[in-house]
């Protein structure tokens, strides 16, 4: 952190993070919280693999297995992958476009705390009568029959964290449209910024469908609604449609920023500009658009009829075209480049064959007739882990190494990083490759155990061993992080030496106002252009002047905490507990009063004066 942060007491640092509206600190909060939930979800994955390692295992009961399985999926998607993506978006996007902050710093903080309290609420279920057990898709017919409060934790927890994600999406859309530095045209934006832009648009248009779906489930579970009660005229398929209208774009919400991170890494470590930049932008936008047209391929076996199935099958296969464009562009970026095999680059190179394998099985699943065979088997489990682990998780690990110096000012140990990489990559393929064959041999998804002598023993044992490789890899990453932060060797502006975009032109970590003078952007890869002309820093686009900054605020925490409290009241209301209604009212009261304070209290921010900036020359921060 910045030099003056070291002088602060521990309590002051905590208060600083609770009230911060600085995108860089919010990025660190997302990284810590998302990283924590990633460990929790990983632990759940290990429990799953221990239970399935041998037939007829009784490591966990059938009911507990359902809870672990549901929480593994829900945690990994909503509480680990998405926040970690938001961590890198917060850390890099404002710097990449040459902005001093995001468009809505207060909302940025609110988005984080809503996600955080939603995630904590969801995980409270473990200690309060049992976790959700209806799968991460929580299909209505299972959810309505579930007799613990687990699924209510799912409904309310995701509702709260979902609002946070929606807010974050709007924030990044406006930031990228309005806050770009002079000369930073759309077609000069780094690809990570482009992918964050498209992802934010997907969040904006996909999450409200989940919001409605969760409301309907909540009405049915807690307030006597009949949306999914067939005996009262309801229809459970409505949930499936709403869930997947959100759920399929969600897959692209996760993978597009991963593509963006890899695009940065390929160009940086091939020391070449990204091949086919404009076609990469086009492909990203096209994937985002097509992502909304394919949700029903998750529902081929529901019985929508051959015409609907055929349309969704063809639309799904069409997505392979822009994705293929991207794969070839990455290969051509490396072609003829002067490649440096750093840890992030290793992840990027390993990502290509891993993700292509997941894409090929995706095409197989898209063939509706064949999908009747694959559906609900381990083949599907193997497929989506190949795209999500082989795509998103590899990108998050690569991004952790790549952006660590910019976020913390230190470089993670490369030797340990490479050990993590190899263990994780081997473990990943060991775990999931064999699952394709288990699926084709008939092993169904979501079963808590299986009988011997069906030919599944060896495959499951190998799969479980692979999972532990990934577990060890993550532990080594944690050791690496602790070692690096204890040694605390500070790095300069451009620790990878080949940085191309604006974030590498300023100190690591940047001063809280990012750019002392906004930089003038003269083309794609602006910092690279300046370096090629022998300059050490960007040309400023404005004279040195006062900088306007937003005030910190504690209200995002109280707004989110109020909803967290209210959710308990709403949930226990159905049990006729007489404290439930007051808790609901108090919780909503905390939220609404906090919102009212925010509305009526003027918040003009403050100015850093020109004279103070002139005295900070030694700290850099020049554009």
């Amino acid at each position, binding site marked *: 952190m910045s030099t003056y942060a070291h002088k602060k007491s521990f309590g002051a640092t905590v208060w600083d993070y609770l009230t911060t509206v600085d995108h860089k600190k919010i990025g660190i909060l997302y990284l810590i919280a998302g990283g924590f939930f990633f460990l929790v979800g990983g632990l759940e994955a290990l429990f799953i693999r221990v239970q399935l390692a041998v037939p007829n295992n009784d490591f966990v009961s059938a009911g507990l297995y359902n809870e672990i399985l549901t929480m593994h999926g829900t945690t990994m998607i909503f509480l680990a992958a998405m926040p970690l993506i938001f961590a890198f978006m917060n850390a890099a996007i404002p710097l990449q476009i040459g902005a001093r902050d995001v*468009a*809505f710093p207060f909302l940025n903080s609110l988005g984080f705390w809503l996600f955080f309290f939603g995630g904590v609420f969801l995980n409270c279920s473990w200690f309060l009568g049992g976790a959700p057990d209806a799968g991460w898709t929580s299909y209505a017919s299972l959810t309505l029959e579930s007799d613990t409060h687990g699924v209510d934790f799912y409904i309310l927890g995701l509702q709260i964290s979902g609002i946070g994600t*929606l807010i974050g999406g*709007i*924030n990044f*859309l*406006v930031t990228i*449209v*309005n*806050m770009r530095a002079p000369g930073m045209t759309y077609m000069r934006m780094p690809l990570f910024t482009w992918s964050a832009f498209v992802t934010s648009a997907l969040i*904006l*248009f*996909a*999450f*409200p*469908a989940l*919001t*409605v*779906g969760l*409301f*309907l489930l909540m*009405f*049915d579970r807690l*307030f*006597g*609604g*009949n*949306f999914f*009660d067939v*005996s*009262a*005229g*309801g*229809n459970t398929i*409505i949930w499936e*449609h*709403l869930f997947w*209208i959100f759920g399929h774009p969600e897959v692209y919400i996760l993978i597009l920023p991963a593509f963006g991170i890899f695009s940065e890494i390929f160009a940086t470590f091939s020391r070449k500009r990204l091949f086919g930049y404009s076609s990469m932008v086009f492909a990203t936008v096209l994937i985002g658009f097509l992502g909304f047209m394919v949700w029903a391929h998750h529902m081929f076996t529901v019985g929508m009829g051959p015409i609907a199935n055929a349309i969704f099958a063809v639309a799904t296969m069409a997505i392979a075209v822009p994705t293929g464009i991207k794969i070839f562009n990455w290969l051509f970026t490396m072609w003829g480049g002067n490649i440096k095999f750093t840890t992030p680059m290793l992840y990027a190179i390993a990502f290509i064959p891993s993700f292509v394998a997941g894409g090929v099985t995706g095409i197989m699943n898209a063939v509706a007739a064949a999908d009747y065979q694959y559906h609900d088997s381990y083949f599907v489990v193997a497929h989506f882990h190949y795209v999500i682990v082989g795509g998103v998780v590899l990108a998050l690990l690569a991004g952790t190494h790549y952006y660590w110096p910019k976020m913390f000012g230190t470089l993670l140990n490369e030797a340990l990083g490479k050990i993590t990489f190899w263990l994780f990559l081997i473990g990943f393929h060991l775990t999931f490759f064999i699952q394709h064959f288990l699926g084709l041999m008939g092993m169904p998804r979501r079963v808590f155990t299986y009988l011997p002598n069906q030919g599944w023993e060896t495959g499951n044992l190998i799969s479980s061993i692979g999972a532990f490789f990934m577990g060890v890899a993550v532990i080594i990453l944690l050791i690496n992080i602790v070692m690096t932060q204890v040694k605390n060797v500070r790095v300069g502006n451009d620790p990878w030496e080949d940085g191309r975009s604006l974030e590498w032109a300023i100190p690591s970590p940047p001063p809280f106002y990012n750019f002392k003078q906004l930089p003038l952007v003269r083309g794609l890869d602006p910092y690279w252009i300046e370096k090629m002309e022998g300059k050490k820093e960007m040309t400023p686009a404005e004279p040195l002047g006062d900088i306007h900054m937003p005030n910190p605020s504690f209200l995002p925490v109280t707004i989110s905490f109020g909803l967290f409290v209210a959710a308990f009241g709403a949930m226990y209301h159905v049990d006729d507990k007489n404290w439930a209604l007051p808790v609901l009212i108090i919780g909503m009261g905390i939220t609404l009063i906090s919102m*009212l304070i925010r*509305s*009526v209290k*003027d918040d*003009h921010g403050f100015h850093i004066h020109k004279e103070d900036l002139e005295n900070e020359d030694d700290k850099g921060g020049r554009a």
Partner: protein
Amino acid sequence: MAAVQDKFTEMTWPSSPEKATLEAKNKFLGFWFFLGGETVLFGSLFATYLALKDKVPDSSHPLAKDLYSMELTFAATMLLLTSSLTSVYAMYHMKNFNFQRMQAWLLITVLLGAAFLGLEIYEFSHYVHEGHTFTSSAFGSAFYSLVGFHGGHVAFGLLWILSLMVRNAKRGLDLYNAPKFYVASLYWHFIDVVWVFIFTVVYLMGMVG
């Protein structure tokens, strides 16, 4: 670019005060994006309503054509459409730096909105007496969710505009609160447009059976 603390006269007031500062531009664009998300929210509720329209457990439950009455919903529609017009007048005066007239037209907007809400509450209680409740059937759940979500938006909009009027009553217009009034009026137009669709899809299409 103008700063939020600047003092203005009628002569110096910018022609688009809702977009005159960077904060205002962000607010303006962010709110349009938010309305895009709201469109999907209502779209999902409309789709759910259409899928569950007239889906009742048995024939003793009233259907859409037995319930809706043209007189009531027509009156409600007129009230809400007019309130959208009056909010345009309010924004016209905001752009001309005429704070008192803006407040007056906003007050008329709020009164019309409150009258609309009153009619809706009367309508709902009427339906409940006829056995059409939130818990009586899937049709009931879908109807009250869609129309109720809209009614909730109207109620929130009323509180929003009222708090803006009260908060700024003593200090008049500046570039800090002008965009706030503007996005509140955008929101008001949005719930008006949603109502046009509810009037068509729920009531008109419901009455023809």
